[in-house]
């Protein structure tokens, strides 16, 4: 699972939920520390989360790239906005 860089002296879950933007559909959702994964409520894609502090986290990768590639194969090797 993705690394959590939060210093040990800081209590897990100390921060406010962090707003994140789904990398597949750009929909917004919130994730609270120390969740290691999150699912976008709009498109259902799962993401791994990396934390720096309980207030600062970001999406680092899809849960499984190979699955993601297969699932999004339908639109000719691209996401939204393709030629």
């Amino acid at each position, binding site marked *: *699972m*993705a*690394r959590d*860089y939060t210093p040990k002296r800081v209590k897990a879950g100390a921060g406010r939920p962090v707003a994140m933007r789904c*990398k*597949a559909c*750009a929909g917004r959702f919130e994730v609270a520390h120390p969740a290691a994964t999150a699912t976008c409520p709009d498109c259902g894609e799962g993401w*791994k989360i990396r934390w720096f502090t309980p207030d600062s986290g970001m999406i*680092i*990768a*899809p849960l499984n*790239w*190979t699955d993601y*590639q297969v699932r*999004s194969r339908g639109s*000719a*090797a*691209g*996401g*939204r*906005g*393709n*030629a």
Partner: protein
Amino acid sequence: MNKMAVIDLTARTVEVGGVPEDLRRRFLGGRGINTHLLFHMVDEWTDPLGPENVLLLGAGLLTGLPWVGGTRCNFTAKSPETGHLGDSAAGGHFAAELRFAGFDHLVMKGRAERPVYLWIHDGRIEFRNAAHLEPLNSVETQNAIKAELGDVKIQVAAIGPAGRRLVRWACVMHGVGDAWGRTGMGAVMGSKNLWAVAVRGNGAIPVADPARMMEVTQAHYAQITGTKGFLATSNYGTLIRLNNTRTQGYEGGFNHQQNMTELSAELDSDVFLDKYESAKASCFNCPTHCRHQHEVVLRDGTRKRGGGPEYYGVGGWGSQCGCSDWRTILEAWDYCNEMGLDTGSATAYTAWLMELYEKGIITEADTGGLALKWGDHDAIMGVLRQTVEGRGIGALIAGGWMAAARDIGRGAHRYFDHVKGLSIECDDVRGHRAQVLGLATASRGADHLRSRFTLEEFSLPEKVTEKLVGVPIPADALSYENKEHACIWTENICAVADALGMCKFLTKWLSVGLLGVGEFRDAIEAATGTAFSVEELVRVGDRVTNMERLFLVREGMSRKDDAPPEKFYRPWTHGPRAGTRVEPEAYEALLDRYYAVRGWDRKGIPGGETLRALGLEKEGAFLADRREVRFVWNDAGKEGAVHAAAQG
């Protein structure tokens, strides 16, 4: 308007002029203009490490603009590693700052009497002593220059100890991980006693239509960030390639003796992201942040931070050298960056030596005591250290693999997989026919950044590729049909992107939804006010490719040099696609078709009509009495050069 400067390092003089409008129109900038200048300023007799070699630095036409992906510049010169076309591009922040300092193109000739670095700032070019930088590695050199010039925003391109010691495959470094990597441009700088270029400027790059530029940037930003290709690179960077090569069975292993290994599960890019990536970094104005930065506890317990890695090193030291230990790979990667060594050649040479050792062609007597066992940490680091320190087997390979193969003899040259003297990359693309052709015909030697049709790996439906390339390309990578068109399309889009200073990760080279020549056209018009049609831009790609081809032909190359490595004609031994190989007759037919579409004759020499259409008749004048140079390798490994008079 930004300038071109001719810098005579021997005389310590600088002449500044404009970039000729004619060159802009025909070659745009970056690699395009560099290619033209190189062709005219050196010839087939120029010694790559001599003062007559010319080092060209060219920023792209759109570099530094508030656009998406205008980040790159090219170092171009005659290559000390391959002996012919040397050219390398890199991103980061150097190229943009060079343009802010007022210069788009530098022409560096001669050799400085004592080590110097160039300090280029706000329209001025100064020579500064560099001898005191001798003990520093490439990272320390950059920091030292920033400190002594007193501005933390200075950007530096520097060679490390490898370049200073004229290792023929030394590279030029910027930051901790941006490299003008291949073809030994670092050795050219070292041979000129030019140890770094430092740039800083507050000048404006002129934009013809600012409002339109903003519109174009916003549209392209939205287009790019919505594609799956962007998702792949923004998460995994170049390591995404390992996902493809591993899951589809062509990662290549043990110096290309196998197409698959069991090692690679540990070398999965998700493992890197989870365990070793400590930050992501971007090049100038690029939202992709594909660059990794890492922190690793090495085998000896030291905690090391650095930039990268890129897939070339992970595949290269990983499956190709039989190593599955990230700590070793990252240590080797960082060492090459700090010393200023090309990781492409470093990995290829190491794997080659390991196979030679395995086959008993070299022993500890040749290697200065190193046991070059597959995957061994001390072997991998030992080869690199010996190269920089000039001892053992490193002293041999520092002069390039061709000289090393000559010295070793015993058929050593047969185990090195290359095209035109440049090693192939870590993966094994014999099952991707357009990529085989691209590898074999790329102008600086085996290369994935000039001619490789990346999209071949995605099995795109024909209606998609037809729209892109102009003819339907079979979804099956194993088919040879129409693959010449895919290769030519790739060559042209890469040449144009390199001339614009654009990162190919944001182009259709990587993914169908990203930017294509049509989008380039919009950006060029908004930025420069010059309207190019899509056809004219594609013709720039043709022109650059043909100019590079003329350069190679003048060096004595022809069809015989447009061949994939010998190994590709043998079948894969592992995995579900065992048996895959390049069929010689099918490849020769594909090459014939490629030449025909390009307007070259059956020996791969550009025809008169083709050159005329591109305005290259003057450059093609030498074809009337060209010489063909043949390097003959006999069983003793000795080489004889046979010069034959021109065939028709």
